[in-house]
Every structure is written in C-alpha cells, then in structure tokens.
C-alpha cells in the first residue's frame, strides 16, 4: 500500500485547529481588515500628497498659486502676479482659471445662473495638450455633465450659442469637454469660457481697453497654475513674489489681509484637504491600534496553540524529525492563510473605497472622482500583513525550539521578562478597549445630548429663491405674509441658512466698557424680524417686536461677556460690525442655531435685520402655517424671473452633519470591532493563562481557599492592567479629541462620569470573561489537575 505523505503535515496543521476554526476565521478576517486599511491609507496618502488630478496630462512639477486668508480659506490672485511668476527662473509655464457665476440666456431662451470657469489661453496647451486642437479660439465649451443634462438630445452643439446681456454678440458653443473636466479643484462648472469674454465683465465699457486691461490685471480672482521642470521651493517663490512690484497703474484694490500661498499639485481647497489629512491621520491611528491588537491577539492565539502542541513537537524532535520539517509545515500553512487574507482584503478594500467615495469630505476634495484601488498599494499592504502574520506565527515556535527535549515535572516560574512582556500586552489591550469604550460612550452621550438640546423644530421648510434682474424689496417680501392666513408665517434671510461665506474675519468686534475688549471673527446673517418666531426659537431680552439693533447667539454672548459669565449683561451693549453693518446695539440673545450642523462647534453669530433689497434670499415657513404650494403660488404671481430650490431645514442641517456623522459612525464601528477583538483575545489569553496554572488554583481549592481569594489571585494582574490602562486611554482620547476639534467637529469635553462608567464597563467585561473562564477551568477543577 502506498501512502501519499505530501500533504500529510499540512493536513495535520489544519487538524490542529479542529474545534477552533472560529478563532482561525477571526484571525484571518482581522489580518484582511488590517491589509485593506493599510492599502486604503497608502492610496489616500498618494491622493493627498502625490497624485495629480486626472484632467492633468503632463507629468512635470505642478503648483497652485492662491491667496490664503486667516481662516485657512483661499481665494484667487491677480493676473499681474501670475504674469510676474512666469518670469521666475524655475517656472516654465503658467496658466489660470477664474471660477464665477454668470447669468446667461441658454440656447432655448431660458435665463439661468450658470457656474462658469473662465480659462486662460494657455490652460489646455499647458495642462491637457491632447485637447489643443479641440479647444481653440473663443467661445463656450460645455462640461460633459451639463451637456448630458441639457443638450444630450441635440445631435450636435454646433451653431448653438449663449447670450449675455453685456456681450453684444452671441457666444458660440464650440464643443463638449471630456467628463474628466466636469470637476476641477472644488468647482463643478457648467460651462468653460475663453478668457477674451472677461473684458465684458468689468465695471468699465469693453471698448475702454486700457481700463479693462488694468482692471483685469489687478483684480484678485485668478487661480494660478504654474509648472516647472524641477521641484520649486514654494516659500522662496512666495517671498520672491512679495518682493516683486505688482502694482497696476491707476487701480487700487483694498487689502484684505490675505497672503500669497503656493501649494504642491492642484490644491484650491486646502481646508478640505486638511480635513482629509486629518481623516487620514485618524485612519492611521485606528490602523496602528487595530494592527497592534491583531498582532497581540495572534501572538496569544499562536502561543496558546504552541503550548497545546508542545508535547507533540518535542516527541517529533526526540524521534528525529528534522526541525526544518516542523518549520516548513507551519510556513506553508501561514502562507496559505496569507493568501486567503489577501483575497478577503480585496473585498474589504472595495467596501472601504466605497465608504470613502461616499464621504462628503472626500468627494468634495476629489470632486466626484473615485478612490480606486491601486495594485501597488495593495501589494505593499499585503506584504506587510503577510510579514506580520509569519512573524507572529513563528515567535512562539522559535521559543519552543529552544525548549529542552527532556523535562522533569518541577515547579517552574515565569521569567521577569516574560511577566513584563505579558503585562505590557495585557495593558495595551486594556488601554485599547478602554479607549474604544470611552469613545463609544462619548459619541453616544454626545448624540443624546445633541438631540435633547436641538433648538429647531423639524417641520420648518425652506425655499431658496434666486431672482434674476432687479432685486426685490423687503416691503414686498413682508407683503407676502399678508397673503397667508397667519400674519408673519414666512420668514426671510438674505443668505442661505448654512452659508459660511458671510464670516467677517477682517472685522473685529468690541463691546464698549467691556474690560476684555474681545475681538473675534463673527458670522453675520441678515434676517427678517420674525425669523426666530418662524423657527420657533426663544429669544432672551427681546419681548417686543424686533425693530432695530442686532441679536447675537449664545456663543457670541458667552465670548463677549468675558469673565462675567452673565450673558444678559451683553444686552444693550454696542457691537462694531465693521464698514458694512456699522456699530449696532445688541437687543437680544438667541440660542445657538446649528447653521453648520449640530455636530459642529457653534460659532459666534450676529443676526441683523434684513433691510436692503435682495436678489437671492431664503424663505422659511412652518408646514402648519403655510404649505409649499401656497408659497410657490404667491412667488410665481408676485416675483418674476426666479429659480427656486426647496429643502426641509432639517435636511440642510443633516447635510452639514454628514461628515461628522460619517466619522462618528465609522469610529463607533471601529471601536466596537476593537472591543470585540479585545474580548476574543482576552478569552483566549485568560484561558491559556488559567490552563497553564490550573494546578495552582486546584491546589488552592484543595487547601480550602475561598472562591473570592482564587478569583482575586487569578485576576489581580488584570485589575492592575486596567489601572495602568486608564491614563493611557485618556491620552488616546485627548489626542482623538484634538483631531476632531481640528476637523471642527464638536465633541463634548471629557466627562468624568463617562470615564468612570467606561472603566466600570471595561471592568465588568473583563470580570465577566474572567468569571466564565474561572468557573469553567478553576472552580470546577478536578483532582486530576492536582497531579
């Protein structure tokens, strides 16, 4: 009879896991998740720090030139500065884009406010040379998405044109750009317009070429893109630009405090990028924590298995088995596991990429482009994961190899090094589980608190109105209310509810007689006098109708009241809101309205009375007082030439909360996985630990030790590990909070009750795991354990 021994050792290795297949599956899935997370982190790193966007066809050094404001937002620079940069020695090419909105009459005669990207003549030549032949001359090029939406039923766009009221001739549509040009930087233009039409958009007559040229050279609206054959030092170039004479004769543009900034690659939205970098950092932290946990868990699991098979290996070695055979079998088995890990990690990678593509921060930064998996990044991640898997497999085996072949039964104690390393591993596990539970508690608590303190009712609806042509007066808007049964059921604001562009960073705010003379950036909303009534928000200090002065929010009141802490003290004080709004008297205090979402830290805000005629405004109404169709009926009959957009107020707020919610739920999910992994790891570690000293506990039972004493002796190191883990987890939590704060996500201050609850919860989980194992292994110890 012939016996095939080729796979015998491998099958023996598989059999070794009999009854523990769940453990093996958990291990494989954990490594697969580590692999996928690592691959996504590497890919995201490429996107953030290395990759150029898909619409750029060249591979030389590309930089973005902008002006950076105090709050981190950026805006365009002067054309003059771009022309100056083209003379710098390292710079080989320069081009620019000017994003703006323009009121244009479409080929079908409909007037629309379109998102336009004006581009320099050199733009396509420098950055997308393959399109030179298609993008030549003057006119409009439709972006692919706009074409699909509005012109897909046209056989050709040739002969079609747009009309602008300041351009005396029609502007021809010259073609449709590929879809990769649908999004450039943070903009998603409807149309691309050649630069010559800018001459018609200045405050001067297009015929006055000298003035027009000067204006266009001086106005800071151009987003520059410069290219070089070698790496450029951005700071040196900025200094060189600052030293250059950028004055344009006869034109003075008021300084706004912004400074030139040059970023590597295309980066016209550094705030979104920094948010993404923070998110990337967060993933790295989670990856490191999770990776540590998986490594610790696998060392524990493989060590426990090695102990189980110790006798068998010793016997094999005594019988003369080659050591290489033992190692080879383990190696092959680990390699097969690594291959399975690789396959599963691809599925995880796909899921993680989908999650990222659905993340608002990411899609805002990538402007609709998707995060695609890279084979190189995945390969690198798989190699690292495989390395970890092999190392953790072999550490216990190498240790076992050093064991003596002949052992007599004797009392053996653990070495100090082993005790310390075991304790460090245990503490790391405890710190991670504590951190994860603390985080979960804070997230859940934050959510509950936010829901409880949410000041807005859910039945408020908004209609965003864009009126073309002459603006509408406030009196007309007020009259609108008379058309509805309840007077005052419609409220108005001049800017969108969630608008953040109205932040007046250059304006300082002072209160007379206030010692602190507090200066702060503040957001200003111009709203109708019944704004707070319609939103059903209670006001402090304003009992009558709001006729003059401003209302501030609670955050502004807290900052303005300084050390006093008496918010009402701010009522009656004067506030300097700069050139546009002037000095105003504070007449009331509103609670913090979540303009930037409930998850965002409230910012100081001021509400002024809406007095000037407006082209763009928002109508607010409660469903109980006026229906959408009633309001639309009035609008269509009384306000001509409008575009409207309807949204529930709650939806607008939820939209703002998307990023924070994504991060919160992502963190919650990862935290729960961490807790689950630690609990599984602990079960095996405690079981292995108790198994190895079962005789010790059986002895204690035999000599009459009470159960509590046995429990204490077996769990003292766990309790000590929890105590040591508390400050470590606090450090992790504080750092995590700092990251969230930098993302402008509001996380409640670290709460002592929640921390204590987390410690108790961790203690309860550990005690429960301990008790189950102890009851099973020790308190029911048999006489055989004593022998």
């Amino acid at each position: 009879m012939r016996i095939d021994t080729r796979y015998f050792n491998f099958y023996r290795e598989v059999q070794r896991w009999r009854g523990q297949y769940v453990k093996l599956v958990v291990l494989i899935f954990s490594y697969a998740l580590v692999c996928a997370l690592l691959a996504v982190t590497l890919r995201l790193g490429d996107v953030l720090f290395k990759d150029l966007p898909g619409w750029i066809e060249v591979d030389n050094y590309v930089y973005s030139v902008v002006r950076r404001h105090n709050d981190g937002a950026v805006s365009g620079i002067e054309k003059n500065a771009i022309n100056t940069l083209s003379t710098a020695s390292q710079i080989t090419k320069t081009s620019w884009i000017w994003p703006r909105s323009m009121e244009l009459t479409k080929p079908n005669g409909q007037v629309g406010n379109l998102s336009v990207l004006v581009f320099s003549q050199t733009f396509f030549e420098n950055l997308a040379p393959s399109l030179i032949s298609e993008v030549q001359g003057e006119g409009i090029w439709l972006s692919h998405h706009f074409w699909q939406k509005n012109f897909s039923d046209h056989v050709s766009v040739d002969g079609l044109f747009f009309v602008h009221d300041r351009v005396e001739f029609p502007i021809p549509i010259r073609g449709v750009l590929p879809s990769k040009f649908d999004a450039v930087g943070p903009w998603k233009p409807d149309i691309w317009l050649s630069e010559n039409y800018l001459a018609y958009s200045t405050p001067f007559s297009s015929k006055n070429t000298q003035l027009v040229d000067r204006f266009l050279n001086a106005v800071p609206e151009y987003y520059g893109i410069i290219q070089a054959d070698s790496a450029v030092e951005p700071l040196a170039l900025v200094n060189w630009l600052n030293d250059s004479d950028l004055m344009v004769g006869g034109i003075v543009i008021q300084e706004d405090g912004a400074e030139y900034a040059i970023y590597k690659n295309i980066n016209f939205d550094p705030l979104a990028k920094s948010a993404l970098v923070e998110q990337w950092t967060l993933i790295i932290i989670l990856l490191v924590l999770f990776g540590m946990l998986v490594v610790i868990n696998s060392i524990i699991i493989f060590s426990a298995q090695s102990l189980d098979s110790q006798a068998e290996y010793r016997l094999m070695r005594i019988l003369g088995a080659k050591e290489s055979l033992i190692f080879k079998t383990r190696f092959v088995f680990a390699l097969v596991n690594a291959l399975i890990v690789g396959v599963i990690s691809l599925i995880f990678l796909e899921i993680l990429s989908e999650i990222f593509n659905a993340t608002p921060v990411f899609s805002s930064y990538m402007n609709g482009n998707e995060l695609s998996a890279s084979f190189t990044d995945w390969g690198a991640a798989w190699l690292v994961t495989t390395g970890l898997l092999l190392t953790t497999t072999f550490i216990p085996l190498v240790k076992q190899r050093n064991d003596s072949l002949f052992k007599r039964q004797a009392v053996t104690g653990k070495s100090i090094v082993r005790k310390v390393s075991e304790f460090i591993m245990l503490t790391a596990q405890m710190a991670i589980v504590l951190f994860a539970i603390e985080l979960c508690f804070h997230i859940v608590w934050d959510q509950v608190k936010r829901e409880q303190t949410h000041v807005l009712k859910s039945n408020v609806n908004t209609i965003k109105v864009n009126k073309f042509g002459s603006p509408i007066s406030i009196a007309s808007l007020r009259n609108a209310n008379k058309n509805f049964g309840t007077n005052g059921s419609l409220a108005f604001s001049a800017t969108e509810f969630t608008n953040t562009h109205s932040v007046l960073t250059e304006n300082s705010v002072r209160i007379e007689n206030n010692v602190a003379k507090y200066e702060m950036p503040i957001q200003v909303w111009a709203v109708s006098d019944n704004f707070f009534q319609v939103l059903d928000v209670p006001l402090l200090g304003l009992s009558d109708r709001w006729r003059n002065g401003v209302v501030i929010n609670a955050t502004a009141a807290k900052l303005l009241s300084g050390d006093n802490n008496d918010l009402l003290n701010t009522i009656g004080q004067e506030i300097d809101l700069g050139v546009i709004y002037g000095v105003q008297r504070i007449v009331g205090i509103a609670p913090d309205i979540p303009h930037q979402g409930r998850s965002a830290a409230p910012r100081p805000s001021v509400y002024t009375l809406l007095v000037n005629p407006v082209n763009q405004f928002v109508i607010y109404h409660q469903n109980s007082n006026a229906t959408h169709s009633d309001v639309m009926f009035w609008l269509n009959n009384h306000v001509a030439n409008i575009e409207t957009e309807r949204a529930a107020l709650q939806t607008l707020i939820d939209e703002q909360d998307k990023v924070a919610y994504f991060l919160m739920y992502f963190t919650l999910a990862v935290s729960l996985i961490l807790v689950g992994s630690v609990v599984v790891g602990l079960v095996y570690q405690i079981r292995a630990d108790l198994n190895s000293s079962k005789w010790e506990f059986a002895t204690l039972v035999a000599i009459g030790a009470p159960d509590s004493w046995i429990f204490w002796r077996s769990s003292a190191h766990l309790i000590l590990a929890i105590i040591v883990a508390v400050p470590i987890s606090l450090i992790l939590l504080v750092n995590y909070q700092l990251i969230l704060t930098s993302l402008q996500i509001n996380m409640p201050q670290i709460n002592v009750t929640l921390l204590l609850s987390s410690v108790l919860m961790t203690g309860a989980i550990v005690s429960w795991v301990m008790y189950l194992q102890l009851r099973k292994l020790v308190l029911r110890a048999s006489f055989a354990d004593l022998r």
Partner: protein
Amino acid sequence: MLMAPLIAIKNLSKSFATQAGNVDVLHDINLAIEDGESIAIVGPSGSGKSTLLSIIGLLETFQAGSFQLRDHAVDELTDRQKRIIRNQHIGWIFQNFNLLPDLTAWENVALPLKFNQSINRQHYFSLALEALERVGLIDKAKSFPTQLSGGQQQRVAIARALVTKPGLLLADEPTGNLDSESSKTIVDLLTQLAQEGSAVIVVTHDDSVARRCSRRLTLNSGRLVDEN
C-alpha cells in the same frame, strides 16, 4: 461517650459520565479509619485509588453510599462547609509538590492560615516557621520553590499540610518524584505525624512506603479487594 471514628464509609460508589456512557470507578467501598492510623492505598493504575483519596479529601462527590467524617455526613455538607473542613482539618501532600512559585517557602506554608479567619494574622509567621522547623527547613524560609531541591520542596509541602495541625493527612504519591534518600525522610515525617495522632492516608505504588503504614488497602477495578 465514645467518639465517632474519623472516617466511616459505607457502600460508597462513584461513577463518571463519559461519551461512551457511565464508567464505574468505585463500587461498594466500606472503610473505617481512626485517629492516628496510617493507611496505604495501593493497587494498579486506574483502580480508583486517587478517586477514593479525592472523595475522602472532599474534592469529589459520590453517587451512592454514605461517608461520615467524624460527626459530619459529607453528602449533607455545603461547599462552604467542605472548604472550611479542607482548610482546618485536612492536609494535602501531592506528588508534584504544588507549591506556588511566586511565594517563598514560609509564605507557601502560611497559605492555609490565611484562609482561616479564626487565626490572628500576627501568628502566621510564627506558625509557619514552626512548621518549617518540624520539617528541618527553617533556614530555607525565604527561599522560593525554584531555589529548592525536589526533596526540600516536598518537605515544604508537608509543612504546609501540617501547619493547621489537621486530624487527617492525605498524600498522593508523595515520593513519586523523589530519590530514595528524600523518600525516606518524607516517609519518616509522615509516620511521625501519625504517631502524634493524625490519620495519614497515602496513595502509593511504592511498596517500601506501604510497608511503613499500619494498614494497607488494595483496590482493584474500584473494589476494595484486600485489607491487612
């Protein structure tokens, strides 16, 4: 008034449930042991010696028969009562010594005293040292088990067994891991303890140990086949 015998076992039977069904390990055991007796339990492997010892030591239960430990019906005792009896009236000696490796010799010896609430903490040290002195290891009081030889470890284990001055000493193969000289010292100690009034029950394969005992019980397939 006559005192009840230390151990009175009548028609005791014990079986274990296995996958293949119930396996009987002890059948109809009848046994009476008085104070000061030294008894050797001998027999082939698997005959039920250790099971009988663990029942006598209140570590295992039995299915049939009765077991009277002095005035106590063992099957009526609670777990807590059994623990207290094990702690105060029974001393255990094992083949593998079973000393806790992270405790010194005297701490190991003092361990049973810690579980006895009626003993003052201040007396632990002196009682433990007294026990160590009896086994001739006073100079090794602060040594850890790993620093002691096999024979010394077993003497520390005996000191731990006798520190509470128990009426019953149970030894499971006490000389199984020892050389002949150490074995002789251990058997001398056990004999001496029996002479001082404690009942000593020893499970052994070693005929020289069995010969030093006042009675020898032979077990075969769970039955008491011979007593002399």
